[in-house]
């Protein structure tokens, strides 16, 4: 699904191409979105929603990030500062040349979503991979049914993609956006509470659900969904693992016999139940 067979023969999949960062947007105190193009201002690759790319500052390191959106001539990656490479990425300025390779991973099963109502549930930076799918649904609005987004973060400052959440998405026809933060805060008059409880409160009908967030949020949201009668093959999540090669060869991102970089990162609950719980 990633590169075509002909392309595979030409490019060395482990060597990145040179690209540049044309824009950096500060989403929250520790999350920035990087807009990336090739040196001649084109998209480095054309990703499907949910696919990943390996971004590198070669002198420091290389890591896999999900593509949060794509434009006519660029791709976007929302990156949280948690380690050596991401801290360095947060220090760079617009115009920085970086290495990029991709697209990797299986992406969301768009055909399965066509014509259906979709519920998107995100927590913290977990909204990033799901956003690529939401943007795809909005771009081709007529192909999909009612869109609902439930998103929560620790605090108001930690909410990612504020412009989308509060300005752009509420304006989209037949789309509801529900935002919550963990604790009461001055200047916030929206919902307060954890995402799993909010989802139960909103009492959705069983429908296709895309869910991504910190392990603890997934742990509590899943039983809530199952209680509400959601089917296993309708609950879809995207996983994260330490990755190095990105092409299913170095062995470290495996869950059972699946490689998250190649057979994932998008998995249905049905598929995950068959795999050993090691993620």
């Amino acid at each position, binding site marked *: 699904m990633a590169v075509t067979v002909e392309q595979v023969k030409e490019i*060395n*999949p482990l*060597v*990145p191409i040179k690209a540049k960062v044309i824009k950096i947007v500060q989403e929250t105190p520790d999350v920035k979105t990087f807009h990336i193009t090739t040196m001649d201002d084109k998209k480095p690759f054309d990703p499907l929603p949910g696919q990943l790319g390996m971004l590198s500052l070669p*002198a420091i390191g290389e890591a896999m990030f999900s593509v949060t959106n794509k434009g006519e001539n660029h791709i976007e990656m929302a990156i949280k500062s948690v*380690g050596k490479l991401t801290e360095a990425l947060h220090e*760079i300025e617009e115009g920085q040349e970086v290495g990029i390779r991709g697209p990797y991973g299986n992406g969301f099963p768009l055909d399965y979503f066509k014509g259906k109502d979709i519920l998107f549930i995100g927590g913290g930076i977990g909204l990033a991979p799901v956003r690529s799918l939401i943007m795809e649904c909005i771009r081709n609005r007529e192909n999909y049914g009612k869109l609902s987004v439930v998103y929560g973060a620790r605090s108001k400052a930690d909410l990612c993609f504020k412009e989308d959440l509060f300005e752009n998405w509420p304006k989209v026809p037949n789309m509801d956006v529900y935002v919550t933060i963990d604790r009461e805060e001055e200047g916030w008059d929206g919902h307060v509470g954890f995402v799993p409880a909010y989802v139960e409160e909103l009492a959705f009908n069983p429908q296709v659900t895309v869910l991504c967030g910190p392990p603890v949020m997934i742990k509590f949201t899943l039983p809530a969904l199952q209680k509400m009668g959601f089917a296993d093959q309708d609950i879809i999540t995207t996983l994260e693992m*330490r990755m190095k090669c990105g092409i299913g060869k170095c062995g470290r991102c495996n869950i*059972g016999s699946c490689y998250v970089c190649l057979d994932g990162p998008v998995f249905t609950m049905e598929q995950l139940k068959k795999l050993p719980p090691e993620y």
Partner: protein
Amino acid sequence: MKIIAKERLPEVLQLLAKDYNVLVPAKFEGVTRFTPYSGDVELVLEENVLMPPKDIFFPQTEKMYKFKAKNKSLEIEELPVEKEEQLIFGIRSCDLKSLECLDQVFLTKGYVDHFYKDKRERTALIALSCVRPQEACFCHSMGVDPQNGVGADIQAYDLKEKIGFKAISEKGQEILEKISGLLAEEEVSIPSFGEFNLKADIEGVPEKLQGMFEHPIWADISRKCLNCGACTYVCPTCHCFDIDSEVRGEDGVKIRCWDSCMFGEYTQMAGGHNPRPTKKERVRNRFMHKLRYFPERYQMLLCTGCGRCVIKCPVNMDITAIIKKIKEAE
């Protein structure tokens, strides 16, 4: 069969060395491994080499590409590819099977690893049959015939005082013709092999392991393990690798190097989460990978029965004993 007296083998190797970089099993600094042939190399033909031939195709440290990073600018440069034709003499059936496993990993499932493919394509293989099992060998239990390697260009037979050659592939036929001047045609019989000391009954083990992820057996067998990487590094089929950079000022090289699933840092994520935090999970993953995950994905076991891990593990973690425990477990 075409044969030559064993003591005249260096003549064959000398002749081949004119056209190929010939790699032979030899003792080097006290350790047996495949080394480039030269007149004073100490050939070792009575036992298998300790360091597996995987490092000829998948070196322990390999340079991938160069880069220059200064302030905002970055230059990436691919490294020139070696063109030299290689020939490995004396590769055993178990190690040939391991190359089959590595081919599955590096050459299939959508992406082709250029570094591995390049070396694999320009290397010819002359397999050597084994005369008797070493004490830790159990290749037969893993479906490998010690006297007939699969995937070689030429199968050489160790006939005690003589060595016989049989071409298998077209490339092998060409090589045989090059050295035919030194060989004589003779009727030979291949010596019988002998009983294996170690055996492993893997019938049904991949299937049985499917229900054994939470089984208490893993807590039991992992207690002894030191979590070093000795088994993974001497194993001919283990292929996990890491990618790192070596930087000097502005210039750097991106390298690929062996890594081991036994190390704690292997699956450590930047945010702090580690799906395999203790040695029980890591030991379980190693044996699951060998006996269940790899067969599920590629329809072949990831163990060829060479026995190197059994000999070299400092605390004698024995895969045949573990297979036995799995078979006997409830």
